[in-house]
Each structure stands twice: as C-alpha cells, then as structure tokens.
C-alpha cells in the first residue's frame, strides 16, 4: 500500500546557517544507496579460522530491548551474572555492535526499528533470537501486530528457547554462538546479502508504511 511520506522525509528546501538554501531529499541524501554484498572469507583456511577465532572473542551486543526479554539483560550485564567475564559487552549504538539480540516478542512497529538497527551494524554481524516469541510467536501466536518467525525478516544465527530464558541460558547460548562463529557457521550477514530480495519482500509485506530506503546504513 502506497502511503504519503511523512513531512520530515519529503523533499524540501532548507536554509543553512550561512544563509545558503539547498535542497534536501532525506531518503537519498541521508543514506548510502549501495546494497549489502557478500563478504568472502580469506583465501587460506588457517587465516579465516584465525579471523573467526578473533570474531568469537569479541561479541558486542547492541543495547536494544525489543520485548519483555530485555529484562534478562540487566542481571546479565551487571555483577550478578556478569557476562563481561566471557568477553561479551553492550554498546549503545549499532555502529559499535556486532550482535543483535532480539529479546522477546517483536511487534511490527519494533521490527522496523530492529531492521534499521541490524542494517546499520557492521559485518560480520550476528542475530540471536531470545525466547519462544521469536521462534514461533510464543504466547503472541494470534496477535495482530506481533511477528511469529523472526527468521522471515532477518537471518538468525541462534535461538535460545524459554519464556523467558534465564540469564544462565543466555550465557550458554552465547557460548554456543562462539562455537558457531569459530566453526565459520555464523554467516548471517552473507545470507542477508544473498537472499536480500526475499528478506525485503517479507519485511515489506508486514510493514505497510515502509518509508525507508531498502538498505539504510
């Protein structure tokens, strides 16, 4: 469904502080238009293994809570469970993070923000789905505004089951994610680039007021 763009996204003339007027078209000017590309591994396997080992040791989570599961992150990042001792830390911006934890149910409205956050993260990047809501909808299986399968909309490397999973389960999950990364199996970013059209069509099917560029980073 075509909708009229919000006023802040419309093409308009802006007067700068120096008095010069210039045209701004937010959807083109504020974003890079290049689509994601597949990043090939290093030529020598031993080098790629080394890279993967290093990647597994540096997980930076985006501090973005989408559902009730976000409450489990607080004890995890504070002294009680202290995920920092496993080399996992939180960052406030997608530019500085490489792990997006979708913590619980994801409403269509939040999905839009989650996609933006995911696309702004730097490759290689990973997605962990937390709780049954991200797997099959969980208790929101008949909700009108909550997605049921997260992997329809973004590539998920690992799911952690539970409603909610305890912080211990999350720690175990992060250790599993590290194993996947070291084995070179956490290729979500490449999968997203390969099946980009499929992901976009799924995303646009539920987000009816799509007013972003296709890839906004």
């Amino acid at each position, binding site marked *: 469904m075509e909708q009229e763009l919000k006023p802040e996204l419309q093409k308009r003339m802006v007067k700068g502080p120096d008095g010069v007027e210039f045209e701004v078209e937010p959807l083109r000017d504020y974003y890079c238009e290049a689509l994601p590309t597949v990043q090939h591994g290093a030529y020598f396997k031993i080098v790629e293994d080394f890279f993967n080992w290093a990647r597994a040791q540096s997980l930076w989570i985006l501090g973005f809570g989408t559902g009730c599961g976000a409450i489990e992150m607080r004890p995890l990042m504070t002294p009680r469970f202290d995920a920092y001792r496993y080399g996992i830390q939180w960052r406030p911006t997608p530019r500085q993070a490489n792990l997006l934890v979708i913590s619980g149910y994801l409403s269509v409205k939040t999905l839009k923000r989650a996609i933006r956050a995911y696309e702004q993260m730097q490759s290689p990047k990973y997605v962990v789905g937390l709780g049954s809501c991200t797997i099959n*909808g969980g208790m929101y299986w008949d909700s*009108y505004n909550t997605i*049921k399968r997260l992997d329809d909309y973004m590539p998920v490397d690992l799911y952690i089951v539970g409603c909610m999973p305890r912080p211990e389960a999350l720690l175990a999950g992060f250790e599993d994610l590290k194993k996947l990364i070291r084995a070179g199996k956490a290729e979500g970013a490449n999968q997203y680039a390969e099946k980009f059209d499929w992901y976009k069509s799924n995303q646009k099917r*539920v987000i009816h007021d799509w007013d972003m560029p296709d890839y906004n980073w």
Partner: protein
Amino acid sequence: MRDLHTRLQHLFPLGELTEQRPNLGFVTVPAAYLRPTLLHLRDLEGYTHLVLLTAVDWLEEDLFQLTYLLSNRAAGRDIGLRVKFPRQAASMESIHDLWPTAATYQRELREMFGIDFPGSPRLHEEFILEGWNDIPPYRRDFDTLKYARANFSDRPGRETRDPEQHMKQQLYPDGA
C-alpha cells in the same frame, strides 16, 4: 456515593448507581448530558482529575460504551460515567477542552475502536499502529487470529495441548 447520585439526579437524567466500593461508583449518562455532567462534577463537586477514558464494544447490542472515570482527590472518591451510543458511524463529543489529557485517550480510541471525536487535536495521526490497513483492531468483530494467519507465517511443529487433558495424562496415565 449515594448522596452525590441523588444530588446529580435532580439536575441530569442519570441511570441507576452501581456501587463497586464505598468510594467508587458507576452511573449511566445520556450522551447529550455528558458534557454538563462532567463540567458539574469537575467545577462544583471537586472531581478534578480524569483518571481514564476507555471504551467497551457491546457487539451484540450494537453499542459502544465510553467510561469516563473521574477522581476527587480531596475526598478520595471516584465516579465513572458510562455513555452508550450506536456502533455505526460511532462518534462522540470531544472533551479535550475540559481535560487536555483526554485528547490522547481520544486519539487511541479513534485508532483502536474507530470512534470519532470531532475537533480533538491530532485525532487522525497514528497513535500506536503504523500503516494499519484493516478495521480497528479492538473492535470485537475484528478477527485477530485470522489476521495473524493471513499476515505472519507459522513455523511448523507447534502443538497445543488442552491443559486439563494434558495434566490428567501426566498424573493418571492409566486413566484412574
């Protein structure tokens, strides 16, 4: 509560009083008398706080009901005014000029129930939903399960058990 109801009944054609608690009562008001009743309660009876404004969908009776809950902080008493009006082309007088917060409630009701409040500020802006393209989702004739099935894909393998039967099986496997 009773004394207030008796006093109000002299002025407005009110319905029976339902006393939920000694300090909480509900009363039905005809739509035409809503504003004078609210004004009277606010300015003369000390019910200065609009606690909430919410709707009920009486689908079988083809009515919408709005509940205006007012609070008298000094006396520690609450009164709820119920207004019923037809579901078709549902529209109600806006009270944003009496309580500015009502505008937000009215925006939500417009979006979730499709009730129009002419003159209410920013009424037709999106409130919670973005790009909604179906009938308002809180109306009872909106089938949320059907909508979810049509829009979001299922993951195969999900089973649902009847809790009673399941626990019987678990606790008494021989059917005792």
